[in-house]
């Protein structure tokens, strides 16, 4: 058997892949948080609940409407994104002039309500969601065997993250978004509808969470607590990467997933806390996070 630093390579690569998969979800979720925080200046505490809603939307679309995985991948983000837009228009829009703590309380409260509603209807035991048949056969990579669905999740997440980064950094829509983040009053004075931009941005961030939820459904079972479990780690990722940094949140998401995977190999006991240890270390050296700008 091959080994690397005394660790069987099969085990090492297996854990690193698991880490990459977790990292893919951290990246997608922290990216949405960063996009929302950048423009709205609100820490979206309901992000985990919206991710869970995405997974449930996929599940319900399949069970009730017979919509398959690919349909759900498109529809669930649209449905949950539209739900986000309604929330933003009817509730969050009233809070922008107030202290950010109100936005935090609102989104936190919403998360509890959404989770409670789903727990009431679906209980807490996980619901199964099968990966589409095309991903049944695992990929033989030579040095390891990789379940095809997991490979797909990593690729899909990377593509979505990069496309989002490209849109924000390289297109005129992205330039408008960056300008509105920097100085919304000036952007309005050029005739741009900033409130609509804010609404669409929130909808987009929410849609990213829902997309992550659908991607996650075949890997983790669909259950009302899935968002609450992952979001704590995602917040740590966001703090490490630096609030509001787009590329930072993506890189940090994948890197921390890998760190977790590595820790599982070398010191499994610490695997669930390693991210928080890194967070404390980073905060001591760089209080604005690795990629964050000074406030």
């Amino acid at each position: 058997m091959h080994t690397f630093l005394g660790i069987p390579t099969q085990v090492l690569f297996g854990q690193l892949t698991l880490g990459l998969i977790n990292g893919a979800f951290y990246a997608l979720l922290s990216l949405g948080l960063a996009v929302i925080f950048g423009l709205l200046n609100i820490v979206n505490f309901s992000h985990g609940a919206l991710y869970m809603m995405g997974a449930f939307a996929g599940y319900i679309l399949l069970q009730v409407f017979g919509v398959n995985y690919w349909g759900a991948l498109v529809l669930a983000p649209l449905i949950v994104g539209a739900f986000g837009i309604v929330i933003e228009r009817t509730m969050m829009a009233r809070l922008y002039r107030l202290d950010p703590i109100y936005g935090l309380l609102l989104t936190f409260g919403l998360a509890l309500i959404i989770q409670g509603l789903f727990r009431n209807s679906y209980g807490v035991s996980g619901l199964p969601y099968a990966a589409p048949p095309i991903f049944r056969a695992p990929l033989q990579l030579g040095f390891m065997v990789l379940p095809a669905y997991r490979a797909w999740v990593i690729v899909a997440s990377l593509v979505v993250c990069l496309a989002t980064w490209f849109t924000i950094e390289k297109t005129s829509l992205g330039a408008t978004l960056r300008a509105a983040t920097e100085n919304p009053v000036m952007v309005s004075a050029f005739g741009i509808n900033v409130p609509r931009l804010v609404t669409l941005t929130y909808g987009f961030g929410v849609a990213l969470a829902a997309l992550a939820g659908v991607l996650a459904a075949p890997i983790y079972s669909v259950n009302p607590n899935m968002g609450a479990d992952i979001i704590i780690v995602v917040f740590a990722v966001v703090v490490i990467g630096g609030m509001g940094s787009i590329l930072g949140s993506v890189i940090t998401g994948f890197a921390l997933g890998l760190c977790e995977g590595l820790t599982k190999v070398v010191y499994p006991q610490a695997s669930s806390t390693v991210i928080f240890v890194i967070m404390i270390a980073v905060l001591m050296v760089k209080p604005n996070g690795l990629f964050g700008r000074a406030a």
Partner: protein
Amino acid sequence: MVDAAALATPAAAAPAASSLSVSDLHAWYGESHVLHGMAFEVPKGQVVTLLGRNGAGKTTTLRSIMGVMNKRKGSIRFEGRETIKLPSRAIARAGIGYCPEERGIFASLSVEENLMLPPVVRPGGMSRDTIFELFPNLKERLSSGGTKMSGGEQQMLAIARILRSGASLLLLDEPTEGLAPVIVQQIGRTISRLKAEGYTIVLVEQNFRFAATLADRHYVVEGGRVVDTFLNADLQSNIDKLHAYLGV
């Protein structure tokens, strides 16, 4: 019988020659009442200045016209249409371009992105080529960061980007503040070129010698209202009064 449609047209609502007409304008920063009945007219195609000491209310007047003051009252008519209740974006879309005192260049945008940010709101805006002809320095710096340029270049960018949009009225807040004499001259030439092209301009200036080379009319602002006005042609005969107003 009176024709209602005719009454609703801009021509019926204000003198056709007026681009902007401000009357009894009041504005507040929170509780602090800053404008106390500002009133002035800007005829189409003219350059009009607001002169006055620091804190007189010149910037606040422009901010009120642009709709970025949260609390404002009175009347601001642009091309015959009342805008006092409109949000800032609607005022911009009506055809007013704003170059603020602090320039408002975006640090997270390149020079090109800054230039292309304002949407075209009406036909007849300047082409990129004409803009680069007016501001050759900008063409060379398109990919640099907006705030990586010198103060003069940033000022030019701040003026250049409102020319593409098709706005017919430009509000320029102290475009020469803190700039070297050669740059001030270049900006002066640009403003007279804009005037020749038919733009209407409200120019806020501390430097009335500079203003005198461009303006048709001056309004003296003090304590949040206009306290005096004279034609540029009458500047010399009013020079002592003006010195007293401006404390120079």
